[in-house]
């Protein structure tokens, strides 16, 4: 177990281009989110994953359309990678009635249940025990579906992580645990929060494989997660995949970055996962620089269009305030 060079990932150009497009879309969505926030159009908080796009896209692209994901508070990327409708997502972010959750959830609880995203989660590690139940349900329905449960490095020191990974392992559940290690649980460096250098080593304690990959290399992520998805789908149980990455922005809007240096952030910006894929596709002669720019432009245009759509959506009516507390 531990860091390994993943098998050569062979994907067709259409898929690679779509991966690039989704990564740009995540970046564009979150830059737009910041912009809207600055303009005072956003009521609540948000947690941006800028710099972590490869982890979301490389992981989710291993899934079939009817597979599922459980996301985190830093979940815009997961949602977009899972093919969410940008307009409904943006509308939710803006608290509008037409948003995915009717404006009741916001950035931290975006769910696209029909699209297989069982929701972002405001509680660190809150989704990991839920993943056991989702896994049990999928195992019982016998349709060969699998799911990915995302969480961050901070979640791995919650009791929920221990209980749930153990239980998923003993029942051989069709789950892939994707740990997005972005270096910090709010301000707490993972280097201070645990004495081990690779969190994936903990998988051994649960009798499941654990692997650490370069989380800024979308193809490395894809390779590791697809192996884990194959294991899950063939009834061999869960895997812990650790994507080592970095968030460029603060934890949330209130973060003054007192716990890290500008140099450190700048170093990681040089490892931009989007530029990395774009450069590779150009270097391999698969896309021209102009084609890359077109992909980027298309993504940013989609987000601009989504923001306009969301801006035009209605606010929830006050009469509907108590709707949906209980299901019928």
């Amino acid at each position, binding site marked *: 177990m531990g860091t390994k060079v993943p098998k050569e990932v062979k994907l067709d150009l259409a898929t690679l281009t779509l991966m690039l497009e989704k990564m740009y879309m995540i970046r564009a969505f979150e830059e737009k989110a910041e912009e809207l926030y600055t303009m005072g159009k956003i009521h609540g908080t948000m947690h941006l994953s800028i710099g972590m796009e490869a982890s979301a896209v490389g992981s989710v692209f291993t899934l079939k359309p009817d597979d599922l994901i459980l996301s985190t508070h830093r979940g815009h990327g997961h949602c977009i990678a899972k093919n969410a409708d940008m307009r409904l997502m943006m509308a939710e972010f803006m608290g509008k009635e037409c948003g995915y959750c009717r404006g009741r959830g916001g950035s931290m609880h975006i769910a696209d249940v029909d699209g297989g995203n069982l929701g972002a989660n405001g509680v660190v590690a809150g989704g990991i025990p839920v993943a056991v*139940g989702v896994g*049990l349900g999928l195992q*019982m329905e016998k349709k060969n579906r699998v799911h990915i449960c995302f969480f961050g490095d901070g979640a791995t020191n919650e009791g929920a992580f221990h209980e749930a990974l153990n239980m998923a392992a003993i029942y051989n559940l069709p789950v892939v645990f994707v740990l997005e290690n972005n270096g910090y649980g709010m301000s707490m460096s993972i280097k201070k929060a645990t004495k081990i250098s690779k969190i994936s080593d903990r998988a051994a304690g649960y009798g499941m494989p654990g692997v650490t990959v370069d989380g800024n290399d979308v193809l490395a992520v894809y390779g590791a997660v697809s192996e884990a998805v194959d294991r899950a789908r063939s009834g061999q149980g869960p895997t812990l995949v650790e994507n080592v990455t970095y968030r460029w922005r603060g934890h949330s809007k209130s973060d003054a970055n007192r716990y890290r240096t500008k140099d450190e952030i700048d170093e990681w910006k040089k490892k931009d996962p989007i530029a990395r894929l774009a450069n590779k596709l150009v270097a391999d002669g698969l896309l021209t620089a102009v084609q890359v720019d077109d992909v980027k432009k298309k993504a940013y245009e989609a987000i601009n269009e989504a923001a306009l759509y969301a801006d035009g959506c209605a606010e929830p009516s006050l009469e509907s305030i108590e709707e949906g507390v209980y299901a019928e």
Partner: protein
Amino acid sequence: MREITYLEAVREALRQEMQRDEKVFLIGEDIGVYGGAFGVTLGMLDEFGPQRVIDTPISELTIAGAITGAALVGMRPVGEIMFMDFITLASEQLVNQAAKIHFMFGGKASVPCVMRTPMGSGTGAAAQHSQSLENWFVHIPGIKVVAPTTPYDAKGLLISSIRDNNPVLFLESKLLYKTKGEVPEESYSIPLGKADVKRKGKDLTIIATAIEVKRSLEAAEKLAAEGIDVEVIDPRTLKPLDEKTIIESVIKTGKVLIVHEACKTGGYGGELAAVIASSEAFDYLDAPIMRLAGRDMPIPYNRTLEMHTVPQVEDIVEAARKLVHRKV
């Protein structure tokens, strides 16, 4: 009609629902070959197999997560927490996840699950195995709280709870497990949110929950011998509460005694008193609303001390006398 125990009635509801609907399954600690700490699920492993009667490690948080997640993908799970005291360990998943998902996701997902747990004192199990913590959950929107007190109610309410599309906390009274009563063999349901007048009377309304219903009925017999005619109401579902039945009774009798085992401060009785005091029944009250509840202290081990920590039959008789004779 056939008589069975409260415990057998719970088991029969589980069996009949599992026979009817393959989406219903059980999950909890020692519920398989051991049959559960109180024997409720004895024999069910043989009938339904380990896929549907799932023994878990000692991981309460993830038992709650498991029912939440499985419900999210269309199952109808029934979890068991061995003692209600241990629901403290499962609270995050019940309170932040199960109870919130339907609302937080704009009604696009629901969580039809039941968490069963035995509560109450009287078994010499002391402070960490004897609590009645129902009011914590009554306080949480999105979750229903059911507490049956007869074998007939236990079966019908559990069947309704399993069929309900919301998370339901199903509270079983340990001291009632061995009590017997008439229970139809066929499947039937009792609607949630409907109180039951366990005894009709005109001089005083006693509203009691859980084990205190049984004690109140015994007290009512003693009071009858003194010419005091007591009406005993069992809300059965603590949330949603059937306010109408209670208010009508108070309008009739003009006097109210509320009895529960949980500690008085912050207990359910405060809510009942407020419901009555702020209703049209207020004008009919000819005595203060009285609460008889557990003392504000942990449950002690010693038999005599334990018994005197929560209301007993004699306490109820005495309180009723005072109320009726306006000694309060």
